[in-house]
């Protein structure tokens, strides 16, 4: 089983991202589960969301304490939240940033998801872009399934745009 933890701010779509990833895994023929950290956070406050992916039916109902992957939507979160908490050996932390961030002892990958989102979507909403980057980096979900999941999540004009943003990030991170 692979476990992913998203760090975001209320309103940035972390929960949606976790669900998009879960659905993408499902389209790849895997079992999945996605859920938010069950809080009362409002827009702007730090939030978490989780995705589980497995080849077998997922029955486990506890929260995720030792993720394989961590996705950070906003680097300023790292001032108040320990994004490295519990991460498994060999785990990857994907951070949306312009800077070259290093965290001692952790495999950190960075991407300017905000830049891609602004360019493709016209708004700094990075959740789908980061999903694309995650797919490129880890290969846990295929880009085809991810795009299908995104198109289903955003019916109408937003769908193709978000799928493009994800694909752009995917191509930048593939094989990194």
């Amino acid at each position, binding site marked *: 089983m692979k476990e992913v933890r998203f760090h975001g701010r209320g309103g940035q779509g972390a929960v949606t991202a976790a669900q998009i990833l*879960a*659905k993408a895994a499902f389209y790849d023929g895997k*079992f*999945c589960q*996605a*859920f938010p950290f*069950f809080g009362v956070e409002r827009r702007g406050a730090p939030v978490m969301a989780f995705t589980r992916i497995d080849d077998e039916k*997922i*029955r486990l109902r*506890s929260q995720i304490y030792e993720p394989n992957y961590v996705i950070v939507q906003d680097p300023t979160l790292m001032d108040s939240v320990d994004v490295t908490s519990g991460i498994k050996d060999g785990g990857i932390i994907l951070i949306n940033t312009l800077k070259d961030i290093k965290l001692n002892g952790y495999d950190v990958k960075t991407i300017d998801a905000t830049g891609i989102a602004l360019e493709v979507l016209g708004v700094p909403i990075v959740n789908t872009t980061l999903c694309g980057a995650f797919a490129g980096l880890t290969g846990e979900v295929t880009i085809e399934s991810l795009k299908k999941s995104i198109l289903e999540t955003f019916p109408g004009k937003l769908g193709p745009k978000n799928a493009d943003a994800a694909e752009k990030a995917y191509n930048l991170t593939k094989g990194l």
Partner: protein
Amino acid sequence: MCEVKVITGTSAAAEAAKLADVDVIAAYPITPQTTCVEKLADFVANGELNAEYIKVESEHSAMSASIGASAAGARAFTATSSQGLALMHEVLFSAAGMRVPVVMMNANRALSAPINIWNDQQDSLSQRDTGWIQLYAEDNQEVLDLVIQAFKIAEDEKVLLPVMVNLDGFILTHTVEPVTVPKQENVLDFIGTYEPKHAYLDPKKPMTQGALGDPNYYMETRYAIETAMRNAEKVIADVHDAFAEKFNRAYGNGLIESYNLEKAENVIIAMGSICGTIKDIIDLKKKEGVEIGLLKIRCYRPLPVEMIKDALKNAKNVAILDKSISLGMNKGAIYADVASHLKDKKTVNYIVGLGGRDITPEDILGIYDDVEISEDGKTNWIGLKEE
């Protein structure tokens, strides 16, 4: 053909109500139930569900309107949680006493104070004596399947009681996972149309519902509900079996589910989503050559006591998990109900997950270890931070 959707537990409940082609929905929003009634509102707004959606001003009115609709002969559905369920308390008795087969989804959530929106099962367990059939889901698929089955159980002439389908707040309500959604024609073929013979409101055949029952009649009406509850045991099993045959999904015998109970001496009794985690632990230990078991209660009212006793005949040490607490007794509701029927075994009560306290696989492993050494009749609060 079915369609598999990656959806939340509340969406699964809403999908099931839609498949059942409900006539009237009366609902009031409360966390973590809201996404169910939002989804239903979408269905109605888009013409996918032909129903009257009454946006009531409270849960008390939600239940009252549901009773009115069902008493008039309509298939009625509502959903609530926690404080909302507590607010309904008075009229829950009325629904059962008036024998209206309302189906309700309840998102299990803790009760105030302090205010807490997270999961435990205190809300529904506190309603155990209202005359409602209570069913509990382990995952989102079971939510959908239970809501469909609930209509068929509630509307059965041998039952005619309201049914509450419970799912753990957030743990299921806000978690997406794959759910197989059957075709509506198959569901309607399975549950049929609601054509009540006992209760409807039609000027062509006037009847009086909700009469005064004086001491000459009242006891008989309560006994009739108890009889219907006993009838429901068989109906729930039959409906489950028929559902399993038609839709290819089974859950034990419909009332309880045994998991590795044949060889296990140390077993857990539990209800709801935690059963999934427990099954994982049981499989894990099996690989190590250790046999432990689970008895999942799917139907809490009517409580299938004989089935439980029979399923546990090989068990020695029984850990009973409760996500509720009867204050002043230091026991959870399931323990209080079940332990007295297991006198030849050691029973230990574990109070877990109150107000959303997470229950980890390590907690479950610890309970299996503890039940073997703990003294009989003890109560342990798991994860309690003691000063």
